[in-house]
């Protein structure tokens, strides 16, 4: 159905070898000053993502994971350290690193088709090629029949699939997903997690995905990075070798999710007993 889509699917997905990394963060730090307090959003983050890899960062709200994603997207700047993408220091946003936002990021004045077309239009892609690409990606996310609908006529799950199609249509080198399923109901989230696994396998996309949902992280990721707040740090890394498609009630998924969850809870527990004042 989508023969054109199949890219060289890397038979061996190289893990964190710095050499082949598409994205590298070198001791990235970021602070936010407000009148009341100073928050260390990120402290000495080192992160390497290889081409074709699906990396999920999981952590409680306020741990700095969205700040991290925004830095990779070029929407925020680092205070210290360096964020390098494809050999170049990240200075501004660009269509090679497209963001799928949480919600309400589709344009209401455009139809579904117009939204998916948006990024291609910004890049100056010709009208004929634009039509082909939009058709292809609307089919990929199963929304061909809804191309003429307006955004407010769609369900939450459909909106996120439009966002996914809009992002994939510009064929970015890396997809940045900022809690894209957080606002959806549980059933819709299950379906979209399944679809995202299929889309990832079919397109070989490199994905950096942010969530606070441990189970979601384990189902999707090649690697799960656990982040803890104040200061925002990557505490531990889990490799996930369970074959796709993963079902959320399989033993391997449940066991690993429990392990990740206990890591997070351990951290929260320690904090509660230290009793220090902590900002978000």
């Amino acid at each position, binding site marked *: 159905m989508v023969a054109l889509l199949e890219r060289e699917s890397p038979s061996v997905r190289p893990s964190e070898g710095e050499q082949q990394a598409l994205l590298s963060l070198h001791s990235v730090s970021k602070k936010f000053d407000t009148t009341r307090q100073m928050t260390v959003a990120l402290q000495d983050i080192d992160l390497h993502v290889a081409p074709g890899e699906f990396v999920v960062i999981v952590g409680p709200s306020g741990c700095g994971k969205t700040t991290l994603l925004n830095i990779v*997207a*070029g*929407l925020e700047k680092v205070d210290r350290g360096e964020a390098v993408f494809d050999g170049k220091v990240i200075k*501004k*946003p*660009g*269509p090679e*690193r*497209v*963001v799928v*936002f949480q919600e*309400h*990021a*589709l*344009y*209401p*004045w*455009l139809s579904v088709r117009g939204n998916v077309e*948006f*990024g291609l*239009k*910004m*890049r100056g892609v010709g009208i004929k090629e634009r039509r082909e690409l939009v058709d292809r990606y609307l089919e990929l996310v*199963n*929304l061909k*029949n*809804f191309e*003429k*609908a*307006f*955004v*407010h*006529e769609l369900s939450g799950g*459909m909106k996120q699939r439009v966002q996914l199609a809009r992002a994939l249509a*510009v064929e970015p080198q890396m997809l940045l997903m900022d809690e894209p399923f957080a606002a959806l109901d549980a059933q819709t989230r299950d*379906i979209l997690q*399944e*679809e995202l696994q*299929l889309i990832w396998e079919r397109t070989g996309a490199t994905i950096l995905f942010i969530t606070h949902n441990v189970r979601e992280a384990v189902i999707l990721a090649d690697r799960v990075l656990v982040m803890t707040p104040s200061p925002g740090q990557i505490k531990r890394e889990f490799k996930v070798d369970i074959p796709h498609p993963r079902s959320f009630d399989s033993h391997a998924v449940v066991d690993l999710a429990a392990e990740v969850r206990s890591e997070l809870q351990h951290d929260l527990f320690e904090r509660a007993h230290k009793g220090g004042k902590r900002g978000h």
Partner: protein
Amino acid sequence: MATDTFEFKPASRLSRTLAGGSDFFFKLLRIAAFYVGLIVVWQLVADSGLWESYAFAGPTEVWDSLQQNWDNGRIQDAVQTSLKRLAIGFAFAFIIGITMGAAMGGLKWVDETVGSLAVGMQSLPSVTWLPLALIWYGLSERAIIFVVVMGSVFAISISARDGVRNIPPLFRRAGLTFGANHYQMLRYVVMPGMIPSMVQGLKLGWSFAWRSLMAAELLYVSGGLGFLLQLGRDLNNISQVMAVMVVIIAIGLTVDRVIFARLEGWVKERWGLA
């Protein structure tokens, strides 16, 4: 993966009208009944003899006057003259107002300076620009158009500013992530994004422009509906005065129901606002 197998069919305008057919019919009937009733009451009041006939004209006299002024072409001339002035003045106000408002919404220092001035100027009744206009431009078309522009440009600019400000930041971030440059952001994100706020502003701007025009035409000999109204007064012709007022009301209602109702319908269809 195929979760949505049913087909999405947006209801066509025709099928919607047909489905709500009887509702639509009753709505028309209700409106017609209201106006017929109003005219009957008007006639009864005129016949009651409470006012002398030179001070109050009934619907039949007003209708006669309308017919007479139509037959000798005065109404058509006056409507044409007034609408032309309105169109020119409103077009200027639209372009200047949107440019000013977009700058006020996008640049803080413009809002602090020009923005505060616009708020102050908006409180000025537009007729007060007329003496100034007459001194600057003399008894000319320009003077009237100037008053129309000044009457509506500030309302339009303030709504344009709010329109730019009300665009959700996420829309810009989405634009950035797809690599939109400054021009593209303005053309494809900011301009369409400000439309819902603009519709209200344009409506306000049009009604200000229309009122300023009538006031200006009343105060100075120049053709147009305001002039025809003033002529009726000078001739002590109450039925002409009331006939011209009816025409002014009809134009106002038509513009609101035809142009702005369409614009609002377009916004509603896309944004889904109630």
